[in-house]
């Protein structure tokens, strides 16, 4: 239960909101598209695949729900989402494969 005062909670919400917005605006607001060096652009193409698999990885290998122990259903679901996503090049197919495998795995493997 949160015991911080109402004012403190509002401070956290507003500070987080403002800081997050400024992070989102940062380069988009300040960087001149004409002056962006070519080498930087060649690297920034990879931002999505450089960040997102890394966000998923700890939750896949060490899920909080099992206290950090690897869980076969979650590992299989992640693998299914990855392989189907690469194969079909489709977000929908990937999400569907991941969720179906997850619930089938949890049901069958307990």
């Amino acid at each position, binding site marked *: 239960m949160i015991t911080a005062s109402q004012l403190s909670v509002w401070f956290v919400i507003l500070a987080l909101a403002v800081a997050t917005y400024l992070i989102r605006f940062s380069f988009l607001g300040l960087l001149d598209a004409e002056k962006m060096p070519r080498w930087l652009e060649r690297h920034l193409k990879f931002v999505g*695949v450089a960040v997102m698999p890394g966000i998923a990885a700890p939750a896949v290998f060490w899920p909080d*729900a099992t206290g950090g122990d690897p869980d076969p259903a979650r590992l299989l679901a992640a693998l299914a989402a990855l392989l189907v996503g690469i194969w079909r090049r489709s977000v929908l197919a990937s999400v569907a494969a991941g969720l179906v495998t997850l619930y089938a795995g949890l049901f069958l493997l307990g």
Partner: protein
Amino acid sequence: MPDKNFSSRQAFWLGFRDALPFLLIVVPFGLLFGVVGKEAGLSLLQVMAFSGLVVAGASQFTAVALLTDHAPLLIVVLTAVAVNLRMAMYSAALVPHFGRAPLGLRAVLAYFLIDQTFAMGVNKFAADPGMSLGQKMAYFSGAFWFMMPLWIIATYAGSVFGAAIPPEYALDFAVPICFIALSAPAMRSFPYFVAGVVSIAGTLALAFIPFKLGLMIAAVLAMIAGAQTESWMKRRAQ
């Protein structure tokens, strides 16, 4: 897209439609945040302010968890902000696409910048290099306006009607599946695949670094690996 002359209105609805799969992600995640916020003792208005003003689920959960643990306020804010640092990279990666828009529009597009709109946008813009600035902005906005109302409604429903959701429902796993689904389609191309593998290996190896900053270091290494692989393949092809 077969027709290069499609209107911005069509691009908006295309983005809206392409965001449909995230119904399966945004709704459980929003419900979960509503429930967790309520259980932690936040008022309905506070829960809604989190989802409407911060619009970044993972950092919202972090802030609520730290507030529940009675962490000092500055630590709460800094830790939750650190979770969102990845968005600076998204922001930079969108400059080649949106950098020529007027400042006011860029300020609005920054509010629309979430993981899903970013990944959908750059995937679409890479697949369809002929898209105009207007079409790109409309597509990006369409994706946002599909997800934002769902996120708000799900948060509200979770906070008002939700009781604790049993862990057997494994709602926690909607989020990793979302990030895999967002990045997998691009990984069909080998340099992107290499970047993805480096991202996974790097984040796991650097998990000991506090504030999840290992993720950022791994991301930089992954971008270098991807760009190097790409130029190596180009040289070999010549």
